[in-house]
């Protein structure tokens, strides 16, 4: 007996010793493991921070742009054109338009570059030597259209001098912002030495000033005048597509979720539909683009590049998101509410539409906004239905040619004037991300507000509703 206790005691002591000896290693392992976890979090957060920092540092400078303030003289020597046509009595719309178009064509055929050149020379020091081709590289090529359009709008400007703000060219903007290395040799510079010198002098005497770049928001895409390229057309294209998505995806999605969750008999078929919808949510977006190209474009002959078609494709893509979220919301409604409604004699339809659906409204709204935000950023399917075409106008209807914001980013990042378009693409990304953040913020705001209202109990509206 006396032998056993010490032996048992010894064994316990030895085990304790063993455990204590291993403790250091185990605690080190524990700290290491926890450290890995923290490192993973830091890495994930670091990627987010890096992405935003990168886009911000690249994109923010593009929101300021170099402008030229020129005194433009509409010299009658250069602008030799008949006066604008006046509508005669009894002239048909078509005839008047034809005459007007002819006049505008005559105006357009004039050499407006001469006017631009003269105003640039007027701003330059008196005896600055630069040839006319080089001096014209300072102003953006759309300056002549801008000056011409002023004249078309007001033909009485002939012989007068007005102050006009035009954009400096993309290359001039690069030179001023230092986007291109100033030490590079002449062969690698986009601008001639004389033009670069003149830009610096313009900068010094205040002819060139940098200001907020409105052109990004108000102009359409432009190839000939990169400094004037803007997002207005792409914005309208995206707007029409989101309109189509909201009008179609929300009612259809909510309705099918209601049917599947509340009305459909539980059978093989409904199981199949459920599996099908879950899979549809995970189908790569480009496959929806293939569907759009084959069915909407090739079979139904809907127009290419139209926001309507883009909206339809994105609707089909967004539907599963909305259906799944709405079903989740419907499942989350307390059975007490349903039973209370049915107990009071409401029919199934009344129970769903009058009692269950209003409670799920915040979740459905949030899901809708998140689905729309997803659709807003989608690019790949739009490339397959021709929305990557170059469109230099704001679409007036959903059937006109258009691009979309993400597609515009895709088009701009491929532009060969990288020094200029890297910044402009980042700016477009910032605009797109701004819209996404705005949409998500609206979703969060509405959600909290509506949930509060539902928690506080029904107000006038719901209380009076009856079957």
């Amino acid at each position, binding site marked *: 007996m006396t032998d056993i206790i010490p032996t048992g005691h010894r064994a316990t002591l030895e085990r304790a010793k063993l455990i204590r000896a291993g403790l250091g290693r*185990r605690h080190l392992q524990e700290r290491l493991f*926890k450290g890995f976890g923290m490192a993973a979090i830091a890495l994930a957060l670091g990627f987010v921070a890096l992405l935003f920092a990168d*886009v911000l540092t690249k994109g923010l400078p593009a929101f300021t742009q170099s402008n030229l303030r020129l005194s433009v003289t509409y010299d009658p020597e250069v602008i030799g054109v008949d006066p604008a046509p006046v509508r005669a009595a009894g002239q048909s719309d078509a005839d008047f338009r034809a005459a007007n178009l002819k006049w505008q064509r005559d105006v357009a055929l004039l050499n407006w570059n001469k006017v631009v050149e003269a105003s640039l020379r007027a701003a330059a020091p008196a005896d600055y030597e630069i040839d006319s081709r080089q001096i014209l590289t300072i102003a953006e090529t759309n300056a002549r259209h801008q000056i011409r359009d002023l004249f078309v709008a007001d033909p009485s400007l002939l012989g007068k001098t007005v102050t006009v703000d035009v954009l400096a060219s993309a290359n001039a903007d690069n030179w001023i912002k230092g986007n291109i290395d100033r030490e590079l040799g002449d062969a690698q510079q986009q601008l001639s030495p004389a033009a670069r010198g003149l830009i610096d002098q313009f900068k010094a005497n205040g002819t060139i000033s940098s200001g907020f770049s409105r052109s990004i928001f108000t102009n359409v895409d432009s190839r000939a005048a990169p400094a004037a390229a803007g997002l207005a057309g792409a914005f309208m294209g995206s707007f029409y597509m989101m309109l189509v998505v909201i009008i179609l995806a929300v009612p259809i999605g909510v309705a099918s979720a209601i049917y599947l969750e509340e009305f459909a008999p539980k059978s093989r078929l409904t199981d199949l539909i459920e599996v099908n919808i879950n899979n549809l949510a995970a189908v790569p977006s*480009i496959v929806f683009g*293939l569907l759009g190209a084959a069915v909407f474009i090739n079979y139904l002959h809907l127009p290419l590049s139209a926001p309507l078609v883009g909206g339809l494709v994105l609707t089909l893509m967004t539907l599963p998101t909305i259906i799944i979220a709405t079903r989740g919301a419907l499942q989350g409604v307390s059975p007490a509410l349903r039973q209370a409604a049915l107990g009071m004699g409401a029919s199934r339809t009344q129970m769903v539409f009058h009692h269950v659906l209003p409670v799920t409204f915040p979740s459905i709204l949030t899901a809708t906004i998140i689905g729309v935000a997803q659709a807003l*950023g989608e690019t790949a399917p739009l490339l397959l239905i021709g929305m990557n075409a170059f469109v230099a106008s704001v679409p007036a209807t959903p059937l006109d040619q258009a691009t979309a914001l993400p597609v515009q980013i895709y088009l701009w990042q491929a532009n060969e004037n990288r020094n200029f378009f890297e910044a402009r693409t980042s700016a477009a990304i910032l605009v797109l991300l701004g819209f996404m953040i705005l949409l998500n913020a609206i979703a969060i705001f509405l959600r909290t507000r509506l949930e509060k209202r539902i928690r506080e109990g029904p107000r006038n509206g719901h209380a009076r509703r009856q079957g």
Partner: protein
Amino acid sequence: MNSFIIAGLLLVLLGVAYQIGWTKSRGPVTTNGVKVHSRPQYHGSLLAIWTLVPAVIVLGLWAYFGGDITRSFTVAQIPTDVVTSLDQMGLNGAIQRIQQIASGYGVTGELAPYEQAAGDSLRSFQLLTFLCVIAAAAAAGIGALLYARSRITPCLRARNMVEQVVTVLLLACSAIAILTTVGIVASLVTEAYRFFTFISPLDFFFGTVWNPKFSSTVAGDYGQYGLLPLLTGTLMISIIAMLVAVPVGLMAAIYLSQYAPRKVRAVVKPVIEIPAGIPTIVYGFFAPVTVGPFLRDVGGLVGLPISATSALTAGIVMGIMIIPFISSLSDDILNQVPLALRDGAFGPGATQSETIRNVLLPAALPGIVGAFLLAVSRAIGETMIVVLAAGNSPVLRGNPLEPVSTITVSIVNQLTGDTDFAGPQSLVGFALGLTLFVMTLCLNVFALYIVRRFREQYE
């Protein structure tokens, strides 16, 4: 303009129908005290439905046939000798001129003698048909309205009828989701079948050279359409993406669900999930502009020739995109493991990391594998990142430091802006799409099956 008038009239008609049904159904209650089966709203709605359907059918018929009728009327206004002298395009031009005269906009140039008269009669014809159609639609609607009104009795089960209509509408909506899948499968299969009439499936699935020729080159020589270079590129990028995303995402999920204090979790979890909401084109821009040159410089320091657009660049950026996907799915799954398992391991003195590694992870493994498969299917189908960052070089090779191409990149390249699906050059996009669809479908079905099994295990 016309459609606004029609929509307005239709709305007025519906309002009237609803009101009539509402009023009529209230009558019987007051007169002889019989209990009405349905509330007035349902009688109103039923009448509105009765009115709407015939009116819409009439309008729909006109929308479908109206154009042809107007056109043949216009052609009838042009003297026969003129019609016979014109070809199809000239005829269309003449019709357009007459339409412009009719709309009051006028035309340029000399008016042919018949044109003014034709324009005038077209104008009155348009006005007449417009009025006729409206009248017919209204008559159909009102007729149905009167018939339905006469059927309103206290025992009419108006509510059940309206609810039946609603149910049918709901069913129709949920059929659209099915039709989408049917549409995808049908369009992919038919177009891919047409592609396989040009190129044999063996050459496509087992070919090692991807070299499609433009349709303008020698007739009959379509080039080579081997899938393997694209498939290896896709898989290579997906593997690199998973190598980035799985350790980071899984460890982040473990830390968030097991170690992080509640307050830290509440802040960090949504921030980590931000990248999931960023459009992929943004990553696509970020990859060759920032990540690619960085990798090239790093490679230069250690003497590795990494090109700026390569499988590595695309894979790493795609991995960053997938991190939130993996971390939030794994987080959910770790939270579903019963607490009893964890406490059972803590009891004998296991440290937290030992519990996680030896108890939690093995218990959660099926679910986590399911999450990984879903992430892989996402990586395979991702398009914009690889279009911009993978380098578009469809050559069969095993070096991830060199440019590659993927299935999605080739779909975009072969189909962008091309809708004349006549040759294998564009049809191959559908064969590739079918391959992609089948691959992701298998992964998804399998992953969803595993995740579902896992959930049931602990319920």
